[in-house]
């Protein structure tokens, strides 16, 4: 194995002697067998030029700045860094993610619950995932605002700007058995008791909160603390009503997808669907409303926090292809999967099941970035975009390939090649 790898990169030992580093201010030109840009284009051979954490040029043989240090990556193949648009960090964290004290908490920020020093980010980077949108846990009807993070860097620098959105959930996690919700019994009364315990209860909470927000806005009066909401949560919902903050629905089952659509029509909202395992049953509706779908994981087995609470969904392995055929904007998510359940493997399985390779790659890069509203910076290897790059030792997304070098904002986040080692 080591032999094979060293043979593969034999040509690179020479380059390594040139003491190439990825230091700030330096210009790197990565030359490899192929560059998949994430936008459907494959350059063969391909060169990507990186400067100050950004891509400055990409192509078969783009003009190289005179200061550029050329790194010959041999037979390796470059792709954009993968993006997970609905990552459940909560299952990898012992930090409290679900706020049980209220079912309406759109004023809270998941970023405050993220352990920015968590080792899971290094694992993700090693698997080629360079950005994750940390989605709130599904324990609230109207949950908190998510956060977009790079898996490289350290501490607070991981957090990056992205259009804000809150997460709604009408499924069982927010009502029946999630966390500690329960119906009143005996004399055991605390704040869990008053929470909704049915889907219609959750829907009622959703409508009540948005109706209050709308009414306060229409009457032009400042919100006050009321039943089940606070002035802050009402103010946050008004931002959703005015379109400044987006809305995501976690809806695994088809009837949840329909409810989400009904509620959004009622309040004049647009939304994104998370997980949506039965989306293939609502293709017409989704195509007609152009509702973006963050689909995953592929095997339709609920994972993580929702594993024990989720209603059973009917799996359909062809769902990504069906979404694609129906022209529904979608991307793929690993939910909280790593390793063999990770994002690269999920996209790889979609290829095996018949999806076009470039489309599958786009579904974990460009399309995810577009749904997150950061398509102008991430997801595609193009001049001006962040230099989030993955070098594979074979064809990207194949079961037999793995990331051997990962750059995030031009900085090395993972390196098995020694290509960028400073040997001076």
């Amino acid at each position, binding site marked *: 194995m080591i032999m094979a790898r060293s043979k593969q990169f034999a040509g690179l030992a020479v380059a390594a002697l040139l003491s190439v580093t990825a230091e700030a201010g330096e210009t790197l030109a990565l030359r490899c067998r192929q560059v998949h840009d994430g936008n459907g284009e494959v350059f063969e051979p391909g060169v990507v030029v990186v400067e100050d954490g950004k891509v400055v040029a990409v192509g078969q043989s783009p003009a190289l700045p005179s200061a550029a240090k050329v790194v010959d990556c041999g037979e390796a193949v470059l792709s954009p860094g993968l993006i997970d648009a609905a990552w459940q960090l909560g299952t990898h964290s*012992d*930090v*409290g*993610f*679900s*706020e*049980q*004290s*209220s079912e309406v*908490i759109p*004023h*809270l*920020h*998941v*970023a*405050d*619950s*993220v*352990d*920015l*020093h*968590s080792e899971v980010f290094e694992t993700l980077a090693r698997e080629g995932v360079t950005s994750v949108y940390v989605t709130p846990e599904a324990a609230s009807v109207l949950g*908190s605002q998510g956060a977009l993070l790079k898996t490289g860097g350290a*501490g*607070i620098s991981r957090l990056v700007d992205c259009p804000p959105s809150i997460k709604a959930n009408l499924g069982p996690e927010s009502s029946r058995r999630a*966390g*500690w919700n329960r119906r009143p019994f005996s004399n055991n009364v*605390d*704040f*869990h008791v008053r929470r909704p315990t049915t889907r219609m209860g959750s829907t009622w909470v959703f409508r009540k909160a948005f109706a209050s927000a709308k009414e306060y806005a229409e009457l032009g009066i400042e919100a006050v603390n009321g039943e089940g909401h606070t002035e*802050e949560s009402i103010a946050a919902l008004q931002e959703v009503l005015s379109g400044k903050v987006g809305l995501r629905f976690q809806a695994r089952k088809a009837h949840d997808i329909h409810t989400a659509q009904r509620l959004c029509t009622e309040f004049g909202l647009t939304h994104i669907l998370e997980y949506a395992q039965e989306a293939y049953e609502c293709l017409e509706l989704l195509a007609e409303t152009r509702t973006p779908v963050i689909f995953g994981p592929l095997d339709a087995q609920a994972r993580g926090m929702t594993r024990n609470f989720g209603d059973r969904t009917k799996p359909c392995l062809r769902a990504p292809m069906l979404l694609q055929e129906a022209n529904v904007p979608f991307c793929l998510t690993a939910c909280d999967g790593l390793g063999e359940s990770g994002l690269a493997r999920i996209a790889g399985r979609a290829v095996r099941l018949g999806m076009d390779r470039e489309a599958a790659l786009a579904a974990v890069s460009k399309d995810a970035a577009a749904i997150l509203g950061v398509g102008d910076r991430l997801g595609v290897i193009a001049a001006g975009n962040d230099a989030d790059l993955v070098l594979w030792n074979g064809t990207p997304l194949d079961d037999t390939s793995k990331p051997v070098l990962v750059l995030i904002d031009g900085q090395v986040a993972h390196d098995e090649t020694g290509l960028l080692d400073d040997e001076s």
Partner: protein
Amino acid sequence: MLGLLVSLLSSTIAPDPVAADRAIAVKVDQVYTGEGEVLRGGYLIIRDGILVDVAAASVPEGAWVLEYPGASACPGFIDPVTGLGAGRNLQEPARAVLPQAHAKHSLAPFHRDFRQAARQGLITVGLSPTSDNLIGGHLAVVRTSGPEEAAAFVQDGPMRMALVDDAFEWNRAPTSRMGAMHLLRQEIGEDFADSVVIDARSADQIRLSLELLGGSGQSVTVLHATEADEVRDSLAAAGASVILGPYTLSSSRHDLKLAAELADSGVPVAFTGNGHAAHLRTTAALAMKEGLPAKEALRALTSVPAKILGVEKESGTLAKGKRADLLIFSGHPLDLASRLEAVMIAGLPIELGSTESPKKGQGQ
């Protein structure tokens, strides 16, 4: 031999209230001031319970002279975070945010924990609410031996906070860290406490503590700080101090090295021994084993915790004008082979109690 000499001396100078204004001169081989200095060859002169000189060449006329040949003196130990004598009375689960609470209301002055602590050399302690609240209330600064051998409340200590898991309850709002941060940002404003001790263990909890506090000029002390090595630069930049310990022989090497690493980065380190002077000394000795310089280790038991509790003007070092709370050890104070020979509180030696076990038939 030395013990015998000291006990003879002690018996001859039993506290005499009539002669309270009489000067006391203490002679030891080394004086560890608690600020890193070592003084040799002079007398410590005490008047009215206050140190008036720490390196006097001669003895004032009429002074009691206490000589401890071969011994050394250091400031009385200070443990910034203890629950001495309070049992569960410092653990209040009613609310997550309880800045109105004050540990002084849980002070049990006649509890034997305090007498025991004083006899072991632990002179000043912070009585602290536990980590069961995000904001737990004020610490109380307490002298373990005041009038009538009872513990005495001295002044308000820092505000106690926690971001660790203990601060969350499944049935008490908030249940998530994002909920906690929202609440704390509202609570911590301009007129929040000047000084805060916050229990934060992971690197991320420490990051958030520094983000929350210090903005309005608070002095921040991070309690436990297990992963402080990952964020030591930001701790140093924020001027924060840490409280580590207690360490035992089974503490991990990472934990033991932490004190040396932080001190090296310019972060003041204090130790806690959960209210036991013996644990304080063991903690300091184990940290020294992993590279903490002796003078930093002594600081961690004296001047640094004095600063954390806000009593640095009168306690924590042996210097002119400070309270004469001092410990006499047969050797270096942090050498575990050294014996505690005498404890002087405000200039007066206290009874250390018998080290022999009671004889059969003699009830005590």
